Every structure is written in C-alpha cells, then in structure tokens.
C-alpha cells in the first residue's frame, strides 16, 4: 500500500521542487496543501503518515500546524522544510514535535537521508 504523504507549502513551485526531490522508488500517495488549514484538514482525513511542512505561510503557518497536531496526538512523521535556517527555528520545531528539519532549496540526498534515518521504508 502506498504511504499517504502530505506536502504543505504556499508556493506551488516549492511543492513541485519537494515532490521532485522525493526518492523515486518510494511508493507514495501525494496530497498537497497550500496553507495550514488545508494541511490540518488533510491530516485529519488520514492523508499524512509523512508530512513535509513549510514554516512561513500566510494565515496559518507551520508552527501553528505543529501546535494543532500536537494537541491532536501527533500521529504523523513531520519533516519541516524551510528557508528559515536559524538554529532556534530548528530547536523550536523539534520541541513542537517535528521529527526532522530540511533546508530549502531541498536536495534529494537530504530528503532520503532523513527518511532512512527514521527507518521509513523506501
């Protein structure tokens, strides 16, 4: 069965770049969300075993998504994908339950590395 994954970014170009950087052999069913509210809805619908989450988004940002997920039991492996490369940003999203942190622009090797590190079957 394909793994349901969710790609969250307000930029369609950024979503496209991320999707292209996923390991080609990984059997996934991809859902896309362009803001935090859509992301939470897709998560609740069970479409996010793995979530690739941008931080800087209008309306509901990535931090708020993580907070909501935490309140709801965090049943997802969240990889934060962001241009915000401050050390504190990394620490904060970890504290909010994100499993991994990948910086933009994404490269396939770093995505594969975090997925393997956490034993996700590719």
């Amino acid at each position, binding site marked *: 069965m394909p793994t349901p994954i969710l790609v969250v970014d307000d930029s369609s170009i950024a979503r496209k*770049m991320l999707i292209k950087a996923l390991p080609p052999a990984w059997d996934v069913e991809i859902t896309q969300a362009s803001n935090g509210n859509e992301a939470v809805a897709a998560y609740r619908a069970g479409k996010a075993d793995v979530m690739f989450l941008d931080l800087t988004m209008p309306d509901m940002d990535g931090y708020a998504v993580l907070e909501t997920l935490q309140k709801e039991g965090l049943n997802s492996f969240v990889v934060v994908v962001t*241009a*915000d490369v401050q050390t504190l940003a990394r620490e904060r999203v970890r504290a909010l339950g994100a499993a991994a942190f990948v910086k933009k622009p994404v490269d396939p090797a770093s995505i594969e590395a975090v997925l393997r590190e956490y034993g996700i079957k590719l």
Partner: protein
Amino acid sequence: MTVIALTEDQRDALQEITNIAMGRAGALLAQLMGSFVHLSVPGISLADASNISGTIAQTVGRELAVTAVRQSFSGTLRGEAMVIYDERGCRNLADLMGYEDEVGQATERELLLDVGNVLVGACLNGIADLLVSPLSYSPPTIIAENAEVDRLINPDQLTWDYALLIQVRFTLEIRDFTCHLLTLMPEESISQLKKALDAFMESI
C-alpha cells in the same frame, strides 16, 4: 504594463526564491543580534514611479520617522536595494549588537550601514545564486535619517516609470526592532528577470 507583468508562475517562483534568500539573511541577522528573527512572507508588486512613496509607506507605515540605507546593484539584473529602519530600530541597534555605552552618531551610522550591507548582500546574492545571475554592488550610503517615509524617494529623479518591488520584513523577537528590505528593479531588468525565472522553473 502587460509585457512587464509577471505571470502567476513567475511570481510564485520569485516569491519562493526570495523566501529562500531572506532565510539566509535572517539567519545572519539573528547571529548579529543574538535573537530569533521572524521572517515575513515576501511581497511582490509592480510599482508605479509616481506612486512609489505611497507604496513604500503602505509597507513600512507612515507614523514613524525612518532611516534608510541604499545600495545599487548591477549585473544581468540591475536596480536598487534599500534597508529601512524605523526610529526605535535605530535606537536599539547599537544596544542589540552589544555596545554597552551610548554610541556616537558616527558609530551608529556605521552600524546601520553594516547591517544594511549584510542584509542586502545575503538576500540579493541568494536570489542571484538561484537565478545564476551574479551581481555587483555599490557601497551602501545613508539616504535619509529620521525622515518621513514619503521623502525617501523623489519621484522626479527616477529614471523609470515602472519597477518591480520586492519587500521583506525582519522582526526581532526579543526587542523592538523591525527593518524592511526593499528591492526595486526597473523595467529593463524585469524582462531579464522573467527570462531567468523561466529558466529556473525549467530547471526544476
């Protein structure tokens, strides 16, 4: 107008590229200031020369007196970048950078120029890298001190009718400090930029 307007995809790509670039600039600012920096979603718009001051005032706010540092850049893309500090930001800058005593005006100016230079360099080099379009820069100069936002640019001295305006905002978490980085690229650069954006999109 229609020729220079960005397509939806071009605008999206530019916004994402700017987002990545400002992330680098923000990390440097965080390091300089020892504080977490909140990054805004970049704003991209087409500015009309006759109305440029109003457009800038909308972003920066009219209430406060501002100090601004300007740098021009050239290469395949050319234009100007401005870092705008509000009054409180200026006052807090030396303190944030670890100067314990009251600093003189000369030192304060130097800090404004340095921080401006760091932000402009990191942000525009980030954009230039992603678009494979190297830039060179003029030294930064202070163009206004404690001035009204409306007086930053004299529309009569502009050599263009329309320019692409990219706006990003950095806000420090620990103290009252906000600065804006504005980039203006006049018409002839916009077509170069559009080409570079198309090439970038094809490469992904």
